C-alpha cells in the first residue's frame, strides 16, 4: 500500500536523524580526531599541551561511556540528501523534527532551542524553523547532522567586501579570531563562505564545516597559518594551535560584491551521516 510505504519511509528518516545526532554528539569523526592528534603532537606551548591532553582524554571517556562529549549538544542543523525517488514534501521536515525529539530524550541532548524573543524553551530542541533543514539532490537518501554549539556560533561573522578588497579576506578571517579569543573553545575549525549572496555566503560557510579537515588547499593553509600566528591557542591560554583547519567554499557572485562569511566551530567538530533505510 502506498500510504504504509510512505509512513515506513518517514519513520526510517526519523530514526536515521536520531541515530545521526547520537553518533555526532558522542563520537568525533576520524578526520577531526586525526587533526587534533597531529596538532597535539606538534604543539610546543606547555599550557596548550595540557589542554590537548584533556581534549584527547575527554574524547576517549565520551566514547567509552557513550555520553556526549560536551554538555552543549548544540542546535540541530540537518542536511538531507534526496535521491530521485524521494520528492521533497512537508512530511519529510516533520519526520526530521520527530527524530530530533527522539534523540533529545534518548541520548539525552540538552534542551537548547528557545523562542528568540520570549526565550521560552520548547524542551525538545524543535521550534519554528528548527531543526534547520537544508536539502540537496543525490543518489542515496542520507541525513547529515551538524549539531552546533553557541560559544562558537556567537562569534561567527559576515562582511560585504568590495570587489577590490580581495586581499582583505585574510584580515577579516584573522580579525574574527582576534575578537573571539578563547570564547569559541579553540582550537577551532573555520568554515569560510566566499561569494554568492549575503545569506548564501553564510550558508556556504556552514557547509564548509562538513568538509574533511585533514586536508587543506594552499589558500586554506595560508588562512590557517595566518590565524595560528595570533597565538591564542587552545582555550585562549596561548599556543601554536588556534585553528585546526580552515575550509573554504565559494560560489559565483555579483560583479559589484564580494561577500565573506566566517562560521566558527569549536574543537568538537561534530558531524555524522546516516543512510535512510528504503524498503
Amino acid at each position: 500500500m502506498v500510504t504504509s510505504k510512505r509512513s515506513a519511509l518517514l519513520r526510517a528518516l526519523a530514526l536515521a536523524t536520531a541515530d545521526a545526532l547520537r553518533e555526532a554528539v558522542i563520537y568525533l569523526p576520524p578526520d577531526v580526531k586525526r587533526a587534533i592528534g597531529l596538532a597535539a603532537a606538534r604543539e610546543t606551548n606547555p599550557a596548550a599541551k595540557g589542554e590537548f591532553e584533556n581534549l584527547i582524554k575527554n574524547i576517549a571517556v565520551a566514547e567509552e561511556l557513550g555520553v556526549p562529549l560536551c554538555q552543549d549538544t548544540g542546535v540541530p542543523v540537518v542536511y538531507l540528501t534526496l535521491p530521485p525517488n524521494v520528492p521533497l514534501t512537508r512530511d519529510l521536515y516533520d519526520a526530521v523534527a520527530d527524530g530530533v525529539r527522539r534523540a533529545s530524550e534518548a541520548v539525552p541532548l540538552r534542551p537548547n532551542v528557545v523562542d528568540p524573543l520570549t526565550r521560552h524553551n520548547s524542551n525538545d530542541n524543535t521550534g519554528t524553523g528548527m531543526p534547520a533543514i537544508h536539502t540537496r539532490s543525490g543518489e542515496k537518501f542520507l541525513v547529515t547532522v551538524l549539531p552546533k554549539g553557541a560559544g562558537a556560533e556567537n562569534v561567527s561573522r559576515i562582511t560585504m567586501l568590495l570587489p577590490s578588497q580581495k586581499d582583505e579576506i585574510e584580515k577579516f578571517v584573522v580579525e574574527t579570531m582576534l575578537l573571539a579569543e578563547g570564547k569559541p573553545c579553540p582550537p577551532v575549525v573555520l568554515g569560510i563562505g566566499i561569494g554568492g549572496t549575503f545569506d548564501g555566503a553564510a550558508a556556504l560557510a556552514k557547509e564548509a564545516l562538513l568538509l574533511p579537515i585533514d586536508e587543506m588547499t594552499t589558500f586554506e593553509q595560508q588562512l590557517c597559518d595566518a590565524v595560528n600566528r595570533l597565538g591564542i591557542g587552545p582555550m585562549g591560554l596561548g599556543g601554536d594551535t588556534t585553528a585546526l583547519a580552515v575550509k573554504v567554499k565559494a560560489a559565483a557572485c555579483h560583479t559589484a560584491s564580494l561577500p565573506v562569511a566566517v562560521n566558527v566551530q569549536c574543537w568538537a567538530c561534530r558531524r555524522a551521516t546516516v543512510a535512510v533505510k528504503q524498503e
Partner: protein
Amino acid sequence: MKKPVQLKTPLGIEVLALSAGDHVRLSGIVYTARDEAHLRMMKDGIPFDPSGAAVYHCGPVIQNNRIIAAGPTTSARMNTLSGFLLDRGVAALIGKGGMGSAVREQLKGRGVYLAFTGGCAALAASHMTLKGVYYEDLGMAEAVWVIDLDCLPLIVGIDAKGNDIFDAVRARATKEFARYQKPKG
C-alpha cells in the same frame, strides 16, 4: 611539562604561591554556581562555608543523582558577580575563558582563577562524585551542586600576584594583528 601541583579544598595560603601557567590537580569539595546562583547568594547569603572554598562556573547534566556531563561555562559572565565571594574567603574560581581585570585585582593576595578545558564535560564528570545540592528550584543548570573532585586537571589562569595568562595572550595577538593595519607601501 612541570609536575602538576596537588591541591585539596578547603584551600589555604598554598594558593598564593601558585603562578599563572602552573598545572594543578584539584581534589575535595567544590560548589557549582552560574549567574542565577550568584544573584541568589548575594541576596540570601552563601549556603556553604566560603572560607577556602572553590566555586566552579558550571551547569552540569545530572541524571538519577549522577553527574553525566560537567564542563565549564564562560566565566566572564560572572565578572561583576564574584567580588562578594572573594571578600568572604573563597580562594579559587574555576571556569573557562578567564575573567576581567576587576576580578584580577580582587584575586590579588587572596586566591586564584583555575581554567578547565572547555567542552571536556565527559572527562570532568569522570573525576566527580555528587554530594548534595542547594537552590534546586533554580533548575539543573543554575543550582549550586556540591561535588567531590578527584584530581581534576586544571591550569592557573590568573594567580594571586596579578599575572593573567589570558591577558598576556590577548596582548600578543593584538600586536600580531597590527601588521594588517599598516598602510601598504
